């Protein structure tokens, strides 16, 4: 177990390092942030001073070394725009994004799994066909446009929920949460549903495929031959076999939810990391871009690790490679 964790940790570090080099080199070869930072009327002397102060006159690899040394001590540089530590900015916005992503994941599972089971149990029923048609639609509709339509319908015309912001939040352990207040919840529901749409379709398809596959198996036949009730066959025998492979997918999808939150946050003015990165890209705020990407990669690596571990716990057939050696 320890060996396994160490090896996975090592892999994660290598990925992080490679990503940091790629992103750093890429980001630092484009444009000139000084143009953004300084007014057009600045004197050449002021310009040179700023370049020197930001360390932009050094060769790229020296800049990277400085960056790496600083990064290892948790300092990813100051945002050019906000003149504050980039990492701090990211961490400040992260809870909002995570809340959005987890809520979306929750919605995707709570809606997707029952619909998928229903469609898998009776593949030819009209309701099942309806569910599958919905899932095709969910796959092909561009999320951002659906988001706009949701605002138009639910916020502008019906006026049921607000169109933007986080609403009232409650602080728990130093982190703000929207879902704990009614107002916050009303702000959360629209963006979270929007973000979840694509994943609902995905969960429906995976669950349906898993259920119809499990129903064909001999262990279901044998369970029926034992006289086990149909309810138990579906909810114990079929569902457990369906949900285990779903864990892997869900983990990977959590990462993609965090990434895709960029779009949803922009549409719904949700104050998360996504909005921050879009602004940073538009304004070439390199430290923020870098910090965002590194943090995202770190999160992805962590999520993958957790998913692997969860999978081993859930599926008795899987044993960690490290445990065997």
């Amino acid at each position, binding site marked *: 177990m320890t060996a396994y964790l160490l090896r996975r940790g090592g892999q994660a570090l290598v990925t992080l390092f490679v990503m940091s080099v790629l992103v750093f080199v890429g980001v630092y070869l484009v444009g000139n942030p000084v143009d953004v930072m300084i007014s057009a009327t600045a004197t050449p002397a002021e310009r040179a001073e700023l370049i020197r102060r930001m360390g932009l006159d050094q060769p790229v690899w020296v800049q990277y070394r400085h960056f790496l040394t600083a990064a290892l001590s948790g300092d990813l540089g100051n945002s050019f725009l906000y003149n504050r530590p980039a990492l701090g900015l990211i961490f400040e916005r992260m809870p909002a994004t995570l809340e959005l992503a987890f809520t979306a994941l929750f919605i995707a599972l709570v809606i997707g799994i029952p619909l998928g089971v229903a469609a898998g149990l009776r593949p030819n029923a009209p309701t099942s066909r309806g569910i599958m048609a919905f899932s095709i639609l969910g796959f092909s509709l561009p999320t951002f446009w659906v988001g706009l339509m949701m605002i138009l319908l639910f916020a502008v015309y019906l006026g049921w929920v607000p169109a933007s912001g986080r609403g009232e939040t409650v602080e728990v352990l130093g982190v703000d949460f929207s879902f704990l207040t009614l107002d916050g919840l009303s702000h959360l529901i629209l963006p979270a549903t929007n973000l979840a749409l694509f994943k609902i379709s995905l969960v429906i398809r995976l669950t349906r495929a898993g259920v119809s596959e499990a129903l064909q*198996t*001999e*262990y279901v*036949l*044998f*369970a*029926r*031959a*034992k*006289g*086990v*009730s*149909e309810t*138990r066959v579906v909810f*114990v*025998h079929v569902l*457990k*076999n369906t949900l*285990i492979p779903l864990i892997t997918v869900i983990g990977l999808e959590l990462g993609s939810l965090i990434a895709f939150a960029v779009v949803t946050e922009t549409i719904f003015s949700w104050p998360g990391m996504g909005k921050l990165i879009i602004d940073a890209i538009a304004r070439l705020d390199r430290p923020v871009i870098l910090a965002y990407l590194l943090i995202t990669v770190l999160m992805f690596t962590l999520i993958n690790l957790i998913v692997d571990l969860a999978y081993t716990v859930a*599926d*008795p*057939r899987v044993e960690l490679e490290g445990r065997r050696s």
Partner: protein
Amino acid sequence: MSKNLLEVRGLETVFGGEHGDVAAVRDVSLTVSRGEIVGLVGESGSGKSVTGLSIMGLIGHPGRVTKGEIMLHGEDLRRLPTTALRGLRGNRIAMIFQDPMMTLNPVLRIDTQMIEAITAHDAKVDRTTARARCRDALGIVGIPSPEERLKAYPHQFSGGMRQRVTIAIAMLNSPDLIIADEPTTALDVTIQSQILAEMQKLCRERGTALIWITHDLTVIAALTQRVYVMYAGSVVEEGLLDDVLDRPLHPYTYGLIRSIPSDNAPGKRLFQIPGMAPPIDRMPKGCRFHPRCPRVQEDCLREPSLDASGPNRAVRCHHPIAEDKALFEGERA
């Protein structure tokens, strides 16, 4: 109440396909008395497994039982409501399947899969009692340290051990009848004979009747008292074991016996019945065996019926074998 435990009459099971229904099993009748071990033999696709599943009421979409009676203790299972039928399954009739790798749910522990077979029929039983019964059942089928093995998952057992587990599950509620669908086919020959011997012993001790479905005549010979031979969805011959093996009446049964490798002289080419069993959606007219039959005549295009030719003996053939001589070309070359 009749002396027969199970009496199947005129069973027909069809499967719906793109071009309408096709019958996988047609006009199958069989009886099993208490404690009797009956063999159901035939090639793959002959309808023997479908017959077993039909008796259990486990034919799923797109198949369905369309005709016939399935009487257990004089009660027609086809007329029973679903819940009542479910109450019988695993309780009065149990079934074991071919591949023990597939019949146990890979993600549930053995105790979960055993205890549910008890609680499904007795909601009041407490967990400790049920667990103790499961442990004893594992011990009876020869699984060492059953208490610990209860907590194991199926993948931690070998194939033979897994099949013992499924047998233990089938025996849990001391059913009157077990339908065993080729349960030893996937196992090594040594393990196969162990399991056969144990099944025989268990059934004798408990007075459990057994329908043993197989394509292997040697297993039938070792285990059963009476035999039904199936071909292309119908029973073509039935009789006591020795009668059928020593004096087969149907040319198909005859060919099947001749196909056993040990029945051939060493060094000679192994015998096989010419041609192949017909697919169920393209059955030949009349006697379904006639395209492969060495005794075929004009009237074989007329459908034969299963006629008794003595006590406990019946054959579905217009020209049953009366004399003992080589029938097929090349058979004793």
